[in-house]
């Protein structure tokens, strides 16, 4: 848990809405949000699953590398880090698929190039989730710690909270927190097999919601204990928690969600009344939105601030969601607007509230971020716009 002064000094993101965090933010605010579509990437073998795919002319492996490099370059530029400052930083990566895209791409290419031969079984040649951090460490000569969190949907949100903890304890000099999730057949088919996939549209907190849609993204958020003259976002504190009641939900009574958020508010000494808006996890699955929505209502009551899920617009970027949604949200704050929540049409009587349906101003104050993932994992944190 953190409650010291840690600052967000840089960020960058590549999403289906653009190759930079400001591009994604401006498109969100302007409502230029294309619905999820059938994937066009050459490695995708099923044309039923709609997803939020990053546009790119080239092969999916090159695209994934370009996404990662673009997000890193954008964040380093915004943070005005020198080569030496990058090198002395630590890297904390949140990812579920890592570089598994390489296996999928190489396999589908081999099949495509040998149409008359029966293909061998796909092989797994990647070196585990830690390979992404290793790639970054080698490219930028990073001497700090390298840590990879492979914890489903909270991978990079947990990484942000752990990074802030380590900074507060002075265990690391600076944190480069990365979320990286290329679009994979493995996850598309996986969530479909769990019947958690909405074949039509992702509808967070809507009465008609039927599941999630996956988004492709890479993002970087840089945290530092030192404040520069241009820094205006404080990572006020966060809380990462593991619940053991259910592997697949945070408990549909909302108690766990409410307690996790309350713990964050208490540790940061921020009152519920002072929350400007909530960047909710809002996956569009029945159970997640029920547990999260009920938890938020339980805590905030009638004073519930605007609730926004970004997943109706950029999809569920799985392990990258923490870094991606933070980066895009901060760019929205820079544009002085909090975007509306996409995909909503009808209030769910079990929740009793509608997520924000209009763009709202983004004044100074505290913004709450929540994430709830597979395996009972919960993260929440506060970022204060000064």
């Amino acid at each position, binding site marked *: 848990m953190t409650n010291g002064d840690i600052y967000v000094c840089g960020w960058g993101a590549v999403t289906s809405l653009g190759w930079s965090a400001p591009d994604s933010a401006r498109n969100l605010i302007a409502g230029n949000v294309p619905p999820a579509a059938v994937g066009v990437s050459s490695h995708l073998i099923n044309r039923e699953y709609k997803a939020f795919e990053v546009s790119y002319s080239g092969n999916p492996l090159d695209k994934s590398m370009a996404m990662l490099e673009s997000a890193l370059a954008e964040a380093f530029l915004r943070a005005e880090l020198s080569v030496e400052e990058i090198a002395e930083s630590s890297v904390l990566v949140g990812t579920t698929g890592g570089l598994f895209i390489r296996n999928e791409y190489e396999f589908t290419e081999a099949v495509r190039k040998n149409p008359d031969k029966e293909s061998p079984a796909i092989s797994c040649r990647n*070196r585990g989730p830690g390979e992404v951090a*290793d790639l970054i460490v080698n490219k930028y000569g990073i001497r700090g710690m390298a840590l990879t969190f492979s914890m489903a949907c909270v991978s990079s949100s947990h990484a942000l909270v752990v990074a802030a903890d380590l900074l507060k304890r002075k265990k690391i000099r600076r944190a480069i927190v990365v979320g990286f999730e290329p679009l994979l057949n493995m996850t598309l088919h996986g969530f479909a097999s769990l019947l958690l996939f909405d074949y039509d549209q992702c509808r967070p907190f809507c009465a008609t919601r039927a599941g999630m849609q996956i988004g492709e993204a890479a993002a970087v958020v840089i945290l530092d204990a030192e404040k520069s003259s241009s820094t205006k976002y404080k990572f006020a504190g966060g809380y990462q928690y593991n619940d053991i009641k259910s592997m697949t939900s945070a408990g549909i009574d909302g108690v766990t969600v409410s307690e996790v958020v309350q713990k964050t508010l208490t540790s940061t000494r921020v009152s519920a009344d002072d929350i400007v808006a909530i960047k909710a996890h809002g996956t569009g699955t029945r159970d997640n939105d029920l547990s999260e929505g009920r938890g938020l209502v339980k805590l905030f009551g009638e004073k519930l601030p605007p609730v926004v899920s970004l997943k109706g617009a950029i999809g569920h970027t799985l392990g990258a969601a923490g870094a991606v949604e933070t980066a895009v949200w901060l760019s929205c704050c820079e544009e002085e607007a909090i975007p509306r929540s996409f995909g909503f049409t009808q209030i769910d009587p079990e929740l009793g509230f509608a997520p924000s349906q209009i763009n709202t101003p983004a004044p100074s104050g505290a913004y709450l971020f929540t994430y709830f993932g597979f395996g009972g994992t919960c993260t929440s944190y506060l970022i204060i716009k000064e």
Partner: protein
Amino acid sequence: MSTKNNNQKKLNTSIPVIATSYIGPALTPNRDAIWEEGKLPLNTDGLVNEIMGQPMRRAGRFIKMVCCGGLACLQKVSLDYLKGKKTGIFLATGLGNVDEIMPFITQVFKHGGGFPSPNQFANSVSNAAAFVLARICEVTGTVLTISQEELSFESALWLAQSYLESGEIELALVGGCDIFTPTIEEYRERVNLTPDNSRLMPMGEGSSWLLLGNGDGEKIGDILAVDFGDKLIPPEEFSASENILSQSEKLLSASFSKDSAGQKKIRFLLPGFRVNKIETDFWKLKGWKIDDYLPFCGIHSTSPAFGIARALREKPSAIFVHYNCHASGKQAFVVASTK
């Protein structure tokens, strides 16, 4: 602002070790046993029955190994020992649950359309194993799955130590688990093994755990330091005995005063699998013994967990330095001592 002399990556606060356990490819908890690479992986049913007392029907092999390893470590103190204490679980794994991922993805890519199993997908998620272990141990709060290839265990140990030091948790159950997954050639590739960056040894597997924290005077030893090098060294320097010795001596000096009893204990070097040449005579001349644990667990990403847990459990009144390198040249040292 750049800070040249920051002290990151080094933890020199001594952390008591309350219990350890080690399981290698022979699946015999806390015992060395003969095994053959060609016969791996062995069936886990006997191990599960021995440790858990009942089958784990819906769990995959990785989850079973994680749970058996974690619970074998807790056998010394019993599960009740954790009650009322803020406990963190730190699971390190280099490759994660490849055992479940591969059959799942094979089904996905099957000609004519396969039927991937939802249970297999759920089990393949990296933190599923930590969740199951946490539920058995009734641990809520900090439960992290950390992966950093062959430095996964050292990284998890470093992180656990920082959480213990801060007081956020009182106990940490820290373990490393990786399982044998065919083919051997692909497994070797996944662990990034080449003749110049590793020892020629069979591939193995394991689940080895440490319970750390202030245990009311019941400790069996201490983790004295976890230290990551500041520079990347080329493969030809991975096994340079002079350099390893020099850094080991430095770390020991930082842990013990010159005339302390600790300095008089037997010293062991535990070489990791990136050390492709062990100069036994050199170390003997310098007063060190070699504890070569790899023949008992084989190469796997988290084999350092096996070596460290085994040494802490089996060698009283000793000092250990575990040394390993990442293939990219980053060095990691873990210093420990036993009562």
